[in-house]
């Protein structure tokens, strides 16, 4: 029996993710490297997942690349936009998904799918980094906390603090002012999460939300942001451990589709 392996590689601005899929259904393994387009990240991600699965590149029936750096992957047979790939990956995991909120390292996108899981419409953040992973990086640094700790600390917040600026630089200065006033770090963090939620919800409202709503992208791992988004939007938001791999998953699925046609 011939197993068909396909590979999806998502080369983002800040991370490279790779997934190997068997027969268009089963995720064999995945890999993630913390650097993205223009670095050794993509190659290392591909090597890592091949090693862990004991497969070789020639075993791949089709390789699809996506993400900001998708054009740099020589091994890829073709490429697709991360919008379509995120849509595909989310639909695979959540068959009832109609709205996808994807917050990545440098951008935020909201995608609307039709009843068959096909991308119908989308909107992306304009002009700047507020409301993206970069925003969280800057704030975490100002607060002297690790990104991984943001969710835990935010959950302990007792007080509502508003960080109102839409500009990342202004927001950072607000955070510093709060710190100077001895405001509890945990309240500030929750305020930051709500600030992102506010920015991203504005994006979502422009396109119109339809249930079920799924969150993908690296920032989805931060339950604090997800919770803030749920509160802001008044909708349940689903996510999975594969949130950051969603684009790569979608690419691998498309690869399978392309291979059999």
């Amino acid at each position: 029996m011939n197993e068909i392996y396909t590979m999806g590689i998502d080369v983002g601005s800040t991370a490279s993710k790779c997934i190997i899929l068997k027969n268009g259904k089963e995720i064999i393994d995945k890999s993630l490297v913390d650097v993205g387009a223009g670095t050794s990240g993509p190659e290392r991600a591909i090597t890592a997942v091949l090693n862990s699965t004991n497969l070789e590149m020639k075993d791949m029936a089709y390789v699809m690349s996506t993400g900001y750096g998708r054009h740099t992957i020589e091994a890829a047979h073709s490429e697709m936009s991360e919008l379509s790939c995120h849509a595909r990956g989310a639909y695979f995991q959540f068959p009832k998904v109609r709205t996808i909120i994807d917050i990545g390292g440098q951008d935020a996108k909201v995608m609307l799918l039709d009843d068959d899981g096909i991308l119908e419409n989308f909107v992306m953040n304009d002009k700047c980094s507020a409301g993206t992973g970069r925003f969280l990086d800057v704030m975490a640094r100002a607060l002297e906390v690790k990104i991984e700790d943001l969710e835990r600390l935010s959950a302990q917040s007792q007080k509502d603090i508003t960080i109102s600026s839409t500009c990342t630089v202004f927001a950072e200065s607000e955070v510093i002012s709060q710190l100077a006033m001895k405001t509890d770090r945990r309240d500030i963090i929750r305020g930051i999460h709500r600030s992102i939620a506010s920015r991203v919800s504005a994006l979502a409202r422009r396109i119109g939300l339809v249930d079920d709503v799924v969150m993908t992208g690296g920032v989805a791992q931060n339950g604090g942001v997800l919770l803030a988004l749920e509160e802001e939007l008044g909708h349940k938001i689903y996510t999975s451990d594969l949130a950051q791999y969603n684009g790569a998953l979608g690419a691998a699925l498309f690869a399978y589709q392309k291979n059999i046609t």
Partner: protein
Amino acid sequence: MNNIESLLAQFADIADNPKRQLDQFITAGKKVIGCYPYYVPEELVCAVGMVPMGLWGKQGSPTRAKEYFASFYCSLVQMNMEMALCGELDKLSGVIHTTLCDTLRPASQNFRVAIDKIPMIFMSHPQNRKPEFGIDYTVTLYSKVLQQLEEIAGRKASPDDLHEAIKIYNENRQAKREFVKIVGKHPELVSAVQRSTVLKSAYFMEKPKHTAMLKELNEQLEALPVVEWTGTRVVTSGIICDNPSVLKIFDDNRIAIVADDIAQESRSFRKDVSEEGNPIRSLAMQFADQDQDPILYDPTINSRQAHIVDLVEQSGAQGVIVIMMTFCDPEEMEYPSFVKVLKNAKIPSLKIGYDHQITDFGQAKTSLEAFTEILSLRK
């Protein structure tokens, strides 16, 4: 085929070298007048024997212009000021500055006080342009502008000179409109990059020459059989979209621009001028007739929305791509109604942010690719 490629290459060469064009005019003993967007009647410049050149900014970031503008002003106007401050416009004998938006208004004052080398000709169009009193105002305005141009040129324009100029411009507008239609039918022969340079080059050429070349190109293109286009077909809308990096994304994704609603392109040559009667009045009537542009007051309130749907249907486009100029109030304010009408007509649309400062169009690339995927799946 060879001739088409050669003509396209010539147009591109001119579009990419405005400075050289300017130098050539000066060397030939001609005087050149810079014309700001929008709706400057270049016929007036032409009628006194001077050469009008369009000032639509250029790729780059303002540095000296920051002495005059805070950051939140459109890059088109800022880059014009930048060029002026850096001496790139010094060879111009004058600049016609308009006031149709909230950036252009104070910009006119900044230009006038900052650039004393170049006489500024102030052109404050009336928004209430259609009633008789509006036309009268435009006539007075245009007459005053003509007077100032005559002083610079050192000669007067006779009614015959004006009629001649109007004829020249009508011919050029007609040729451009034809070109847009023809390219819509032959996207495989003229890329988006090339299409833009053909239209842009007109701003740096004397119109009779542009018309002659364009008529030849149109003829050659029309003569060829129509080949089925397997890519997607769109209408573009916005102020300007002449950055080759962005247009290359269109081409790489096989997105054909079958019609446009772009200020630097079709909005500027939709309407012709009557060749009868008082020429100044005819020019004023042309302005009175201009519509379907967010920068102009729309007394019908809804005409632009209807127009864009018609444009999509007539050109056989599958969708609309809005090229949103950063910081452009009129375009931003009209956008919600615009999208609403497209939604009702079930026409897919996409908005991409654009300005002269952007160097990395990664986001636009992703958006355009995804949009293509959406349109292809709808086919």
